[in-house]
């Protein structure tokens, strides 16, 4: 009977062991399950968090970053905000979101250029038509100016012509900004004419003072004339606009090493550093122009200058301040755009300021001619000063007649030989010193390309005196007894009597 308890004990032990083993595995599996459940919960939470974060980022992208990126194209100083969460950059999500922004920027700028090009084309077409119409109006107005001379009407026509010039300038500038040609072919013209023409297109042209230090005859080749006029007009317009109405705008035309410089100085407030940089960027013409960049209403002046400098190889600098306190703008025209016109054959417009060099050159020419004339005559003329030269010359026949061995001969010979002169030059001299017509004629003969008859400027009483003197002189020559010595005295009387 011993076997039974052992068997029971063995069975019990085995049962216990298996129960223990079962219980252990049950506990383990339950624990594992709990762990798994926790993991799943955690992962789900994480997933929800990530999804939430992604949605937040996308919402942030749509609400903040994309509008900012779009606005930044027009206003580069704007800052595009970063992702909503700090640790997003660098993650695949962050990188993908940046791609979105880049693509948006590219597409937007392409759209912008397209739309702007369409706007420019529209504006270009419209301004072309307007410009052509204004030129026709200009022709009509100038025809009327020639035809009618009633002062009131002429005043109105001048005012209309000026208004027309200003409208023309605006239309032309708008067209040029939109990439059109300047719209008018001119022939080779004086530089000073182009500058003065530009000046005439502005409302405040009275305030502009042009100093021309160029060699007379310095000209622009035909295709550069209108661009230079437009650029000068725009620079002057800026200068006039940004300076007080009681100040002058000074323009200087000077030769420089490789061409000609037009310097525009105003006495205004000047520009800040930013404005100056922007202006310099615009006039350099290196960036393509978008109308939307020019503001509303668009400020086209500098942009037009930029277009023209690029197209015509001119250069404009607005980066330096003026010694007068405002802005100094310098337009440089290189020598390959310059030519020469004979100023005698085609003088610059009468309204264009004279060259300071011309005056010096003319003075020199007159002096040379005076010296040459005295040398040709081989007569000792005591005064050699230019403006005095004519007076002693007019006295010459008289001196000769006084010294002549044949007393009667010179008197009639004088007027005959001096066919260029008024009759009997010697006779009227005592009474009319100072206002002598001969003197003017000397200058006149000196003036190039104007061979003019002897029509001297004289008052009727002077003419009467001269003719009386002639009569007296011929009468004196016919009378053999008359001596030359008392002649001057008599003419003196006669001149007095004739008056």
């Amino acid at each position, binding site marked *: 009977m011993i076997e039974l308890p052992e068997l029971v004990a063995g069975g019990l032990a085995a049962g216990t062991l298996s129960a223990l083993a079962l219980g252990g595995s049950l506990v383990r599996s339950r624990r594992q399950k709990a762990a798994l459940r926790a993991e799943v919960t955690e992962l789900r939470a994480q997933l929800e968090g990530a999804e939430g974060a992604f949605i937040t980022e996308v919402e942030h992208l749509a609400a903040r970053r994309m509008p900012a990126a779009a606005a930044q194209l027009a206003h580069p100083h704007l800052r595009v905000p970063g992702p909503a969460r700090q640790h997003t950059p660098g993650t695949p999500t962050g990188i993908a979101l940046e791609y979105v922004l880049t693509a948006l920027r590219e597409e937007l700028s392409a759209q912008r250029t397209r739309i702007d090009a369409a706007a420019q084309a529209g504006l270009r077409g419209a301004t072309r038509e307007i410009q052509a119409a204004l030129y026709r109006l200009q022709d009509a107005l100038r*025809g009327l100016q020639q035809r009618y001379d009633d002062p009131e009407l002429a005043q109105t*026509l*001048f005012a209309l012509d000026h208004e027309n010039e200003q409208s023309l300038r605006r239309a032309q500038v708008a067209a040029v900004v939109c990439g059109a040609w300047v719209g008018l072919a001119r022939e080779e013209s004086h530089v000073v004419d182009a500058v003065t023409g530009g000046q*005439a297109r502005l409302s405040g042209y009275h305030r502009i003072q042009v100093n021309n230090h160029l060699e007379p005859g310095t000209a622009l080749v035909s295709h550069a004339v209108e661009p230079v006029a437009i650029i000068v007009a725009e620079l002057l317009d800026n200068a006039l606009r940004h300076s007080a109405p009681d100040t002058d705008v000074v323009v200087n035309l000077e030769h420089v090493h490789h061409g000609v410089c037009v310097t525009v100085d105003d006495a205004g407030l000047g520009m800040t550093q930013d404005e100056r940089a922007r202006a310099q960027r615009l006039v350099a013409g290196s960036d393509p122009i978008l109308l939307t960049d020019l503001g509303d209403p668009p400020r086209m002046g500098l942009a037009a200058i930029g277009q023209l400098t690029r197209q015509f190889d001119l250069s404009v600098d607005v980066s330096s301040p003026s010694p007068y306190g405002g802005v100094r703008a310098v337009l440089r025209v290189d020598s390959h755009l310059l030519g020469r016109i004979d100023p005698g054959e085609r003088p610059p417009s009468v309204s264009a300021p004279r060259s300071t060099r011309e005056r010096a050159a003319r003075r020199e020419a007159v002096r040379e001619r005076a010296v040459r004339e005295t040398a040709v005559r081989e007569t000792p003329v005591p005064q050699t000063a230019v403006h005095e030269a004519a007076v002693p010359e007019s006295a010459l026949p008289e001196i000769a007649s006084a010294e002549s061995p044949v007393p009667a001969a010179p008197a009639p010979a004088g007027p005959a030989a001096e066919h260029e002169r008024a009759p009997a030059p010697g006779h009227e001299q005592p009474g009319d010193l100072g206002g002598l017509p001969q003197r003017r004629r000397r200058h006149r003969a000196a003036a190039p390309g104007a061979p003019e008859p002897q029509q001297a400027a004289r008052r009727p009483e002077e003419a009467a005196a001269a003719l009386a003197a002639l009569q007296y002189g011929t009468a004196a020559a016919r009378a053999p007894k008359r001596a030359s010595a008392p002649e001057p005295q008599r003419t003196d009387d006669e001149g007095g009597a004739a008056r």
Partner: protein
Amino acid sequence: MTGRRGGRPLVPAYLSTGGVARPSRPHLERLTVLTRDGTPLPAGLPAAELALLELLSGGALTVVEAAALLRLPFSAVRVLAADLVDRDLVQARAPIPPAERFDPDLLKRVADGLRALKHQ
């Protein structure tokens, strides 16, 4: 129109007078003769007036001739000339009116009268 020699003029006419078309003296006509006395060219004149003075240095001209030579409309030159006359730099002389012909009726009556006297 004048000044068309070089195409469309670059510098409009109003610039020569500073936009003024009403002359300071009313009596200048197209055929008024302008003469300059011999005083040297003064400094500080507007460019267009200087050009007119230089033109007159060559002798007397009518206003309309000066206008043609300066390539300006008559109304502008009239303003320039009036200003120069005001400054005593230029003399203006009224145009010579066309000679008046005698009335043939009057002459006939005078002749008749003379004949009548002779026959008496």
